[in-house]
């Protein structure tokens, strides 16, 4: 796939469908965007700033950027890839280290079945060919947090190859438009994570934590089919959702379960690819997009100023918002790859090749895993659109915010209200409150059940929409009251007493002769003003439709 021309042909800005408040995009601008400095990397696509979308100066060549990614996803498993040590984030240093992880002499790797299954499931979900036989290799380099002096990986023959990942870019011109794009997946390989080095510059010492050493990783290598930071971020976000749906990785970037390296080059379309740089260790989607876009612009500027791009490894300084060369003391590395002699080839079976006498604990059946694949995000979105009649962008929002889909589905389950109403309340009101307080769905003071009850009240016309918002505000305070309790305590229920409402209407007519005159002069806004006055007098508890009916009758319209 040729790299697309960098922005220049596209008028207006393009937006990722991964916007967390994508659903609110069509409403009047009452809702704030997501707060900045969000801790949760999951939603940070929303922070993309697209600095590369600049207009070319006259006479300039068009530049195209070519971006490829290497993504490391920590496998969600109880134990490590080759040892029985537990996998757990933020455990006390060096508390989860087996003899093998510490590379004690004489210890041998024993492959974790769960990690292989995770790799196969991920490969299947990403439309890969699953290799019936794959191999393990040693990659050598000296580093303090790599106790064996080599990493066991799959260099020659990885477990999965030749897949593709589909993602969606949302282009906003006058109307919304979704563009579906595909990035090819070169391969997925199983490999060991390293430990962590903590440099104490003050005492000039390095502390090593081997808890992470040997944790299973899936390295997903994308072909250079991407053309900008935003595309990269959206593609990674989609991968993240797939991994989470599969349960093969928690893929939390803030916790280092998903780490991205980007290979970036620029060239003139039709000409050979430019020299590439690698930007390493990008640990949030926002920084990923920023780093790539910065690096593209830096390379263009460098070349246009007559300079050259060096084949080097760079890191992203998130404080300065720019990439800087990494000081690589050893110079060019030769990893001296060698077959791992302690692990026989990894052989996988399918329904036809499975030996009849095979011990099911000792073999992995690809077809069986395929049957067990859960619904993937793209299918979920499609189902949401069809089942609940929501807009595609609403389905994106529901999936992008962690836990929101589950919340939505629980509300749907428990309420009689229309799905469209539920969508509206969840994406507008509920999400708005969350964003305002920078909370995750799991931290919400309002449970799906509480919202469902409120929507039931609304559905049965026991409460007006405006009053429902008031009830919601009370619910949000989390004082343990139900929607019905709040409604009756604060007398927010709709006035069911027609006589009393008629009296309120009469009093309003009597108190506002001028408005009444306007109504009679057929001023269309005047009747609404009267309705508003009656509602106000009813403390928002009256049904506007009923007020209108009574007013019209009394004024003989």
């Amino acid at each position, binding site marked *: 796939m040729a790299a697309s021309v960098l922005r220049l042909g596209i008028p207006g800005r393009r937006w990722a469908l991964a916007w967390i408040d994508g659903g609110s995009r069509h409403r009047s601008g009452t809702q704030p965007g997501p707060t900045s400095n969000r801790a949760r990397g999951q939603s940070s696509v929303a922070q993309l700033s697209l600095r590369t979308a600049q207009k070319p100066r006259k006479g300039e060549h068009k530049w195209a950027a070519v971006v490829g990614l290497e993504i490391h996803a920590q496998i969600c498993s109880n134990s490590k890839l080759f040892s029985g040590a537990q996998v757990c984030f933020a455990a006390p240093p060096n508390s989860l280290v087996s*003899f093998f992880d*510490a*590379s*004690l*002499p*004489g*210890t*041998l*790797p*024993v*492959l974790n079945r769960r990690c292989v299954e995770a790799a196969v499931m991920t490969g299947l979900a990403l439309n890969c060919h699953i290799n019936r036989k794959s191999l393990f290799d*040693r990659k*050598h380099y*000296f580093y*303090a947090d790599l*106790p*064996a*002096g*080599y990493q066991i990986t799959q260099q020659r023959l990885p477990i999965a190859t030749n897949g593709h990942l589909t993602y969606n870019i949302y282009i906003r011109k006058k109307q919304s438009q979704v563009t579906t794009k595909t990035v090819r997946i070169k391969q997925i390989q199983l490999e060991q994570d390293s430990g962590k080095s903590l440099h104490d510059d003050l005492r000039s010492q*390095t502390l*090593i934590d081997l808890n992470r050493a040997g944790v299973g990783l899936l390295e997903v290598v994308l072909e250079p089919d991407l053309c900008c930071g935003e595309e990269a971020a959206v593609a990674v976000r989609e991968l993240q959702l797939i991994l989470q749906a599969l349960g093969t990785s928690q893929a939390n970037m803030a916790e280092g379960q998903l780490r991205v390296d980007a290979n970036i080059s620029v060239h003139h379309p039709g000409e050979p690819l430019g020299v590439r740089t690698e930007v390493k260790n990008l640990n949030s989607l926002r920084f990923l997009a920023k780093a790539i876009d910065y690096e593209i612009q830096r390379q263009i500027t460098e070349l246009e100023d007559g300079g050259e791009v060096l084949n080097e490894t760079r890191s992203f300084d998130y404080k300065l918002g720019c990439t800087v060369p990494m000081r690589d*003391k050893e110079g060019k590395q*030769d990893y*001296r*790859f*060698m077959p791992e*002699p*302690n*692990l*026989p080839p990894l052989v996988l079976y399918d329904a036809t090749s499975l030996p009849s006498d095979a011990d099911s604990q*000792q073999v992995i059946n690809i077809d069986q895993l395929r049957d067990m694949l859960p619904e993937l995000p793209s299918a979920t979105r499609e189902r949401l659109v069809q089942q609940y009649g929501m807009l595609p962008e609403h389905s994106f929002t529901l999936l992008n915010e962690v836990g929101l889909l589950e919340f939505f589905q629980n509300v749907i389950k428990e309420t009689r209200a229309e799905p469209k109403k539920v969508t509206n309340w969840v994406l507008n009101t509920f999400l708005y409150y969350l964003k305002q307080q920078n909370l995750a769905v799991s931290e919400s003071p309002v449970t799906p059940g509480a919202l469902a009850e409120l929507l039931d009240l609304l559905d049965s016309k026991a409460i007006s929409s405006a009053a429902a918002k008031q009830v919601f505000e009370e619910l949000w305070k989390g004082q343990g009251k139900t929607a019905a309790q709040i409604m009756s305590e604060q007398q927010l229920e709709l006035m069911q007493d027609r006589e009393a409402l008629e009296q309120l209407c009469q009093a309003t007519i009597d108190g506002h002769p001028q408005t009444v005159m306007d109504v009679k002069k057929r001023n269309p806004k005047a009747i609404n003003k009267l309705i508003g006055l009656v509602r106000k007098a009813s403390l928002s508890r009256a049904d506007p439709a009923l007020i209108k009916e009574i007013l019209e009758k009394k004024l003989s319209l």
Partner: protein
Amino acid sequence: MLGRTLLEVSAALKQGQVTPTELCKKCLSLITKTKYLNAYITVSEEVALKQAEESERRYKQGQSLGDLDGIPVAVKDNFSTAGIETTCASNMLKGYIPPYNATVVQKLLDQGALLMGKTNLDEFAMGSGSTDGVFGPVKNPWSYSKQHREGRRHDEHDDSHWLIAGGSSGGSAAAVAAFTCFAALGSDTGGSTRNPAAHCGLVGFKPSYGLVSRHGLIPLVNSMDVPGIFTRCVDDTAIVLGILAGHDPKDSTTVQDPIKLSRIPSEVDVSRLCIGIPKEYLVPELSSEIRSLWSQASDLFKSEGAKVIEVSLPHTCYSIVCYHVLCTSEVASNMARFDGLQYGHRSGIDVSTEAMYAATRQEGFNDVVRGRILSGNFFLLKENYENYFVKAQKVRRLILRDFVNVFDSGVDVLLTPTTLTEAVPYLEFIKEDNRTRSAQDDIFTQAVNMAGLPAVSVPVALSNQGLPIGLQFIGRAFCDQQLLTVAKWFEKQVQFPVIQLQDLMDDGSLVLENGKLTSVSLTQ
């Protein structure tokens, strides 16, 4: 008592003729007396006595764990032993006390065996003489035997003419040969068990690759290493192998299929066998004595009605070179973990992590180890990988195919020499460097490791100098039982003499019930 075989002493234990503690103390005393052999790096006296005590209790309660209960054994110092220093005869691991037992060690202990100590070797098992470890060379017990004293030239009658034990498992071989234990574990990567077994007049067995767990064996070459067994007779080897063999969940290269190994029948019929004599193993450097014994051995099979045919293993001549490339490459990789951070020696130089690594490895490894690391890394460099490593692997495949072809043609067992000559004096041995020596000494043994086959060196007769000579039998992969059966028949025919250690026998601690001093059919 100490001169008996494992099975004999096991019977004595069962019959109460001797208690495990008595046996243990006798062996410990012999270890002290033979300290000059330098067979042991660590003598685990306290551990052994405690194990003996427990064994004794079991015997008293009639709850013996089996043939190995109460039997003193020794283990090469490159097997991990929980709580007991494991050095690989290297400065790098001096003081390293592993927190776990190698599977083979654990299996021996689970059977009630008494661990007498850890035996000497070439540093990280790199060598063929057991001369290149930091604890000094191992001396061959036969240097001090009556047989050798009578056989050697008059001008050599001083102590400086002691002989090497062979290697790299020379300590284990010397330990068994000097009666300080009844069986010992060695390791065999290119011949490191069979070579010292031949030089020390013992049965030295290299099992099929994948039959016995390597977990806890500090690796030399993972794809060739196997734990080896030293005993005084083939039956003893079969007993120990029966205990060690089988799948180990901690070693993914062990075979999953259940292994059935039983005692070898006492009456063996070899008349239906086909014995192959590989013509490529007849090299000019082979001593005439060994050549003659080899041919007598094949006649022995012929006379029993076995078919003996000359066979060809055409790629044999490339084997040692390829072995060198593959061995050093894996060594370079395996040694990468010794950086002084987690365990073992750490240099005091701390200007930078890199400087610390370099100094640690310079101080920790000897020249042989460093030399192999250097050449291994050279072979693994991107620009060299195809030309050396990949090519060597291809040739390795051809060498394996040579063996497979021969076995497919109907040959049951191959018969070859184990070594070119009998053991040479240390002063002679060190005239050549380690690499040259290894290349010479592994010539008949390393191809077997390249192919993963089982092989056993069986002592045949004494040379004119009164030194042991061994011949090697090579079997089909996982036909270890058949191989040992043939070896047992052969052993019975040749009646190899027991070593006469004069100074040890003087105090009567060594009663040699089986002291058959001359071989029946193969006397030189």
